[in-house]
């Protein structure tokens, strides 16, 4: 079982998210995360889906997604050729005397403190998975009260755009 990141261009019609997630659940594909938002073109949205499976499943997922009329393009974003990012908000339990050390950790990771309260701090961080996971493990001893991760989003490096990819790989 490997992890693959797919970037999917879809028509910005209502129900598209439901069609895509319905496709995954009905065919039994495993989704680790799904993030979606508008692109430069307001009629087109872009989904970043992290799936888990083998080569056969990946091939089927790409082909079944392409069958959906609302799906315009599906490409795989390989780790060496793409930039992966995730945004996380973490609410850590921090007593007043601990605040300086936590602030120090956050600065080392180049994160930001976005909220202060008497017994907690809210930290915002963006980065690739490794960086985000490292910060979370540094903060765990203090007690993480709440946390939310957006899930991976990614773009291909270099000059090429998703629109320039062929719809189907050369067989």
């Amino acid at each position, binding site marked *: 079982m490997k992890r693959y990141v797919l970037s999917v261009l879809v*028509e910005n019609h*209502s129900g598209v998210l439901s069609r895509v997630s*319905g496709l995954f659940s009905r065919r039994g594909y495993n989704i680790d995360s799904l993030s979606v938002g508008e692109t430069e073109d307001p009629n087109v949205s872009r989904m970043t889906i992290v799936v888990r499976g083998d080569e056969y499943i990946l*091939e*089927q997922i790409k082909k079944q997604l*392409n*069958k959906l*009329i609302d799906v315009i393009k599906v490409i795989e974003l390989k780790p060496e050729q793409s930039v992966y990012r995730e945004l996380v908000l973490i609410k850590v339990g921090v007593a007043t005397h601990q605040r300086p050390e936590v602030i120090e950790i956050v600065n080392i990771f180049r994160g930001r403190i976005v909220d202060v309260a008497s017994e907690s701090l809210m930290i915002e961080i963006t980065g690739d998975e490794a960086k985000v996971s490292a910060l979370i493990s540094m903060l765990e001893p203090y007690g993480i009260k709440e946390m939310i991760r957006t899930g991976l989003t990614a773009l291909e490096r270099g000059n090429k755009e998703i629109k320039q990819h062929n719809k*189907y790989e050369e*067989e």
Partner: protein
Amino acid sequence: MKAADAIVECLKKEEVTTVFGYPGAAIMPLYEALRKSPIRHVLVRQEQAAAHSASGYARTSGKVGVCIATSGPGATNLITGIATAYMDSIPLVAFTGQVKSTLIGRDVFQEVDITGATEPFIKHSYLVKDAKDLPRIIKEAFHIAKTGRPGPVLIDIPVDMQNENIEFSYDEEVNIRGYKPTYIGHIGQIKRALRRFKDSKKPIICIGGGIVSAKAEKELLAFAEKSKIPVVCTLMGLGGMDHNSPYYIGMIGSHGDKVANKAVSEADVAVFMGARIADRATGGSKLFAKNADIIHIDVDPAEIGKNLGTSIPVVGDVKNILEQFLEMAQPLNTDEWVKYLTDLKQSDIKNRKPSSNVNPKYAIQLLSEVLDQNAILVADVGQNQMWSARNFKIFDERKFFTSGGLGTMGYSLPAAIGAAIAAPNRQVVATMGDGGFQMSFFELATLKQNKVKLIILLFNNEGLGMVREMQYKNYKAEYGVNLSGNPDFIKLADAYGIKGRRVLQDDELKEVFDEAIHSDETFLIECIVDPKESTL
């Protein structure tokens, strides 16, 4: 003009002459527009039959079948029909009424989320949000239904939108950026496939429903005969290859011909054309085509590599690809292989087993001899389906179809009605069992109302034959398959004003078939069949 009238104008632009439907409150404005139009509306007796009739109509005419239902229960009754069409890739456009747009989501009277409900087994669906979009939506829906791998498309129209005034203009072109099927095969792949053939000693072609829907029967026959490659077919491919050709071997699958299955298992190169090769065709075995290099030709790239490990995939319309093949085809060195298979085929032919009741296999063979060369046979599901598939001779313009993918009982009667309406000058026979008949017999009223002439061949073995056979095989006992309490089918037909005769013995068949064929009206033939009669 009113949107409902615009919908009718769109149907006319799409050359729709017949629709099958059942009205209700939410679809009333469209019905008013239909009343004023030249389009023929066939009123069914349950919406599932509207979808099946549209399917039979589509398969016979080559056009897109159209069915119409109201919101709520009308729409949900279409679901089985839509799933049936989806599994067999039949071009259908279904129009459903929907509650007033401002009331959607509030669980009002006769409201269902039909676009959500049909999502798993539909090619595409639309919920109309702005009446102005209707002409574009209808144009797209017909395009999607009949191109690429055909399939059902649903358009859900809130009742208030049907009454709105809109500008009517029908685009000549469709441009859907997410939908651009590939029709021309990649020349490199085609050459690879032909090279692989050149060295093969035991090639086999296996065809599926794609040959029929692409109307590629002539190209296939020409290619098979020019290259001297024997052909087998799946249940859905029956009729794609003329049974009289010396290269036609038989049907594969769990209920197929032994020689056909043997041919696939011994082949060194197997070409699958327009077939998805699911579990019934492979017999569920991992050893299917184990000795062969597999070439898979299909217009739907998702099917290639899904069930079979494919060495050479070719995506495209099978008719185009066969034409390209024909240009470069060379006769292969297969005389020994073909002789081996045709000898086996001859030796497989069994003698008729004596029976105290009607032998259904003999009945279908006899039917093959007396029907016209352009007759249409529509089979239901179960033993009657396999008796029909295995014994009906298909050549010249004959046609055979059934619910292959979903296996929906009750399909054959409404589908045969659709076929007869599409081809009023051809003989149409519907075969079914006593189980399947009772799932849709109410369509006898539709048949009567529309003056349709069918020959209905009902095999009565007082039960669900195929399930019963499987139960005995696995558990040595039957349960829940006994259909005692069956009505007197001849009396039932008579109640609808339909003639019929019960047949108890094989020697009565010829006379009854003659009577049915020469009758001007529908004729029901009820054959009493031994419950222990085997499928194979």
